[in-house]
C-alpha cells in the first residue's frame, strides 16, 4: 500500500510548482492556469485524507468525515469554475483596455 505521505508530497510538489508558475510566468492566462494547478493540488490532499479517515475512523460519527472530504472537493471545483469564469472575463476586459496580456504592463495600481 501507498503511504499517505506520498500523496501529500505529490500534492505539495504540485502546489509549489503552481506557485512557481505564478511567480515566473508573464502571461496572465498562464498565471491563472497556475492557480488552477494549485487548486488541484489541494483537491488531491482532500481526497487523500478522505480515504485515510475512511480507513482509520474510530467512532461512528467519524463516518461522515471521509465522504465530506469528497463533498468539499466538489465545492472546491464549483468555486474554481465560478472563479475561472469571472477571472477570464476580467482578463478579457483588461485586454481590451491595455492591449496586452503581459502582467508586468498592468501595474497602474502602484503607489
Amino acid at each position, binding site marked *: *500500500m501507498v*503511504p*499517505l*505521505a*506520498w*500523496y*501529500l*508530497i*505529490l500534492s*505539495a*510538489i*504540485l502546489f*509549489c*510548482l*503552481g*506557485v*512557481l*508558475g505564478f*511567480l*515566473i*510566468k*508573464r*502571461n496572465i*492566462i*498562464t498565471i491563472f*492556469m*497556475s492557480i*488552477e*494547478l494549485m487548486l*488541484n493540488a489541494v*483537491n488531491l490532499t482532500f481526497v*487523500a485524507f478522505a*480515504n485515510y479517515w*475512511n*480507513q482509520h475512523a474510530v467512532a461512528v460519527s467519524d463516518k*461522515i468525515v471521509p*465522504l*465530506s472530504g*469528497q*463533498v468539499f*472537493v*466538489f*465545492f472546491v471545483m*464549483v*468555486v*474554481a*469554475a*465560478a472563479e*475561472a*469564469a*469571472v477571472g*477570464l*472575463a476580467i*482578463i*478579457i*476586459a483588461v485586454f*481590451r483596455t491595455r492591449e496586452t496580456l*503581459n502582467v*508586468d504592463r498592468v*501595474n497602474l495600481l502602484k503607489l
Partner: protein
Amino acid sequence: MVHEILFVIFGLICVAGAVNLLVQRHPINSALSLVVVMASLALIYLLLGAEFVAAIQVIVYAGAIMVLFVFVIMLLNAGVEERSTGSKVALLLGIPGVIVLGCLVGWIMISNNQRLGGIRINTADFGDTHNIARLLFQNFLLPFEITSVLILIAIMGAVVLGRRSS
C-alpha cells in the same frame, strides 16, 4: 505493489505536466499540459477509490474549465510570451520562498511517515455516488444552494465584464 507502481507512474505524469506548464512559452501549450495534469489526477483519484470525484474532475475541470481557458486563449489570440523584467523581488525572494515552503512541507510529511500510515484501494462505500449525494443534499444542503447562487453571480459577473462597452 501494483498500486504503488500505478501511483508512481501517474504521479510522474502529473509532475511532468506541471513542469511543462512552466516551461512552455506559448499559453496554449501550457493549457494542454494542464489538461494532462488534470487527467492524471483523475486517475489518481480512481486509485484512491473516489470515483465520483474522478468523474467530475474530468467532466468539470478538464472538460469545462480548461475548455474555457482554451477558448479565451484563442479569442485573445495570445501569442508567445514576451520577455520583460517586472519584479526582481519575485525572482529573488519568491522562488527561494517557494522552495523553502515546499521543502518544509515535504519534510513534515516525511518525518511523520510512520505515524500517517498507508492507503489502500478502498471498499465500495467510499466513493459511492449514492452516499455522496445523500450527504450533499442532506447535511450540506445549505452550502449546495449557496454555491448555486454563487454560480449565478459568476455568470452575471462574467456577462457584465465581458460585455463590450458601447
